[in-house]
């Protein structure tokens, strides 16, 4: 059984089919990229997979459970227990320090553990920034705090919507490196990106166009590392 399966999923806003009859399977431990022009329904799909929104039509099976039929309350529970989220805008609570932001995810999940949270920050290379507020961190550092927060509860699946959209190449590489580490540990990754270099690292790339799955590309020589076509520094 696949970890995630979408069966004829549509999301309709009035006349607009943000998602139009999408079917898709993601296996456990897989690393999938999703590309597509702006407005093609990428975020809409991530919201549905992330238990934050429900499809208008179709079934979404996560670990065998049809989440399109669940109540809001149990969606919260599923989201908390199975999903780690990373956003394009580095969404951190601005009055909590880096380590407190990570502990927040533990707090809602089970029990906050500062030591473990510090370890997670160390994994993303921010051990010495733990006591900083988001405003005292660079964009790349903030995004890494988000990664640390997403992985703290050992989610089965990490959903990242444009995780490198606001980062420079160096930070982009750090984040992809972290994804590679998570992937090698068996975490399932679904990454929405506009950046072909980031998309190509994944094992499989899906392209959405006007709410439909337009193309699927398998990465034959998967290494989990970014291959820069252009080696000249920016």
């Amino acid at each position, binding site marked *: 059984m696949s970890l995630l399966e979408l069966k004829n999923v549509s999301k309709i806003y009035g006349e607009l089919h943000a998602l139009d009859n999408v079917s898709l399977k993601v296996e456990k431990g897989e690393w999938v990229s999703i590309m597509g022009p702006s407005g093609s329904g990428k*975020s809409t799909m*991530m*919201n549905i997979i*992330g238990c*934050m*929104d429900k499809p208008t039509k179709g079934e979404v099976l996560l670990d065998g459970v049809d989440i399109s039929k669940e109540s809001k*309350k149990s969606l*919260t*529970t599923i*989201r*908390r*227990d199975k999903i780690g*989220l990373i*956003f*394009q*805008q580095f*969404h*951190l*609570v*601005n*009055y*909590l320090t880096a380590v*407190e932001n990570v*502990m*927040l*995810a533990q*707090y*809602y*999940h089970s*029990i*906050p*553990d500062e030591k473990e949270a510090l370890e997670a920050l160390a994994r993303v290379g921010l051990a010495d920034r733990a006591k900083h*507020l988001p405003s005292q961190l660079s964009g790349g550092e903030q995004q890494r705090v988000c990664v640390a*927060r997403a992985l703290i509860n050992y989610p089965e699946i990490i959903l990242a*919507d444009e995780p490198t959209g606001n980062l420079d190449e160096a930070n982009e590489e750090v984040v992809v490196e972290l994804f590679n580490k998570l992937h090698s540990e068996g975490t399932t990754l679904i990454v929405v990106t506009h950046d072909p270099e980031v998309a190509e690292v994944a094992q499989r790339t899906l392209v959405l166009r006007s709410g439909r799955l337009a193309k699927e590309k398998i990465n034959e020589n998967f290494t989990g590392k970014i291959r820069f076509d252009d080696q000249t520094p920016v």
Partner: protein
Amino acid sequence: MKKRKMFLRMISASLMRRRSRMAVALLSIAIGATILSGLVSIYYDVPRQMGAQFRNYGANMILTGTSGSFTADDLAKACTEIPEKELVGAAPYRYDNVRIRNIPVVAAGTDMEQAQKTSPYWMVEGRWPSADGEILIGKAAAESFRFREGDMIEVDYTPETAKQGEETVTDNTLYFTVTGILSTGGSEENYVYMSMTDLEKLTGTGSRIDVAELSVSASSDLLSGYSDNISAKVGAVSARLVKRVTASEATVLTKLQGLVLLVTIVVLALTMICVATTMTAVVTERRKEIGLRKAIGASDKSIISEFMGESMLLGLMGGVLGAVLGYVFASQVSRNVFSSELSFRPLLVPVTIIVSMFITGLSSLMPIRSATDVDPALVLKGE
């Protein structure tokens, strides 16, 4: 346990690190709590204050001697001019300078039973003296000597003859038991009160009355007739009428309390509106944060408890501030309007804090409930 700690850490971080925002909310709560606790203080103090203001409640006729003092016989004669049924009380007073622990004090001799009738607003902590050898101490005097009910005290009097500077001075001394402390809101609080016979014994002088206060329940026409008769028929005494609080004037007190109560309710309502508005603004401002919290797994319940926790903490801080400032406010009002000191009510402190927390919680209820409507998907949508 650990969860609780994180909870407290979060809500205090929210208040401490978002100071300017929270300062506005805190200010409105603190002002509300200040006015509330201040007005409640005044509300309870008004009767006492007003009692002092309407000092002549009770006595409505004053007798003084045409040539200094007069005698008990003169008083008795004057009283016969007033029908027995209409005479509520007639209290004679004489004043002498005595010394307690070598400090000069005014001692008043009176008839305790009559004094109670002509001065019903006097408040005695303990009981009135009922026999010779017992003494009533004015509140101010009791405070300066640190006398308490039940104390045995020594009162000295230096006879007139010795005062002229003749060598050996032998003081007259009597011992008294303090039966009560007298509060009137006026100068009586500086005096000590004993029976006429005790004061005569202490001074070694004969019976004498400096002034007598009469309480007569009669219409003002009859009253002025009585006073004219007394002045005319009892040569040693001149009578004059004083205005006393009539029934309608007494209701001023009730009305004033009602007004204070009304203002209290209005302030309460305004505070609630203010807190509700601020909390609504806070929730709106933090929609993204709420969405984020939900996205990473917060249930509606935990969102509510976090915001409630914050507003409770605000209520607590506002309540503490309000209790302190309220006392300052009330004693200022008391001093400037009633020109008397406010009595501190310790119970008002916890009550102010609890009420402040309750009001803050109550008025945050609606805004906080709206926080749960925030859609977590909001966060994934860019801006």
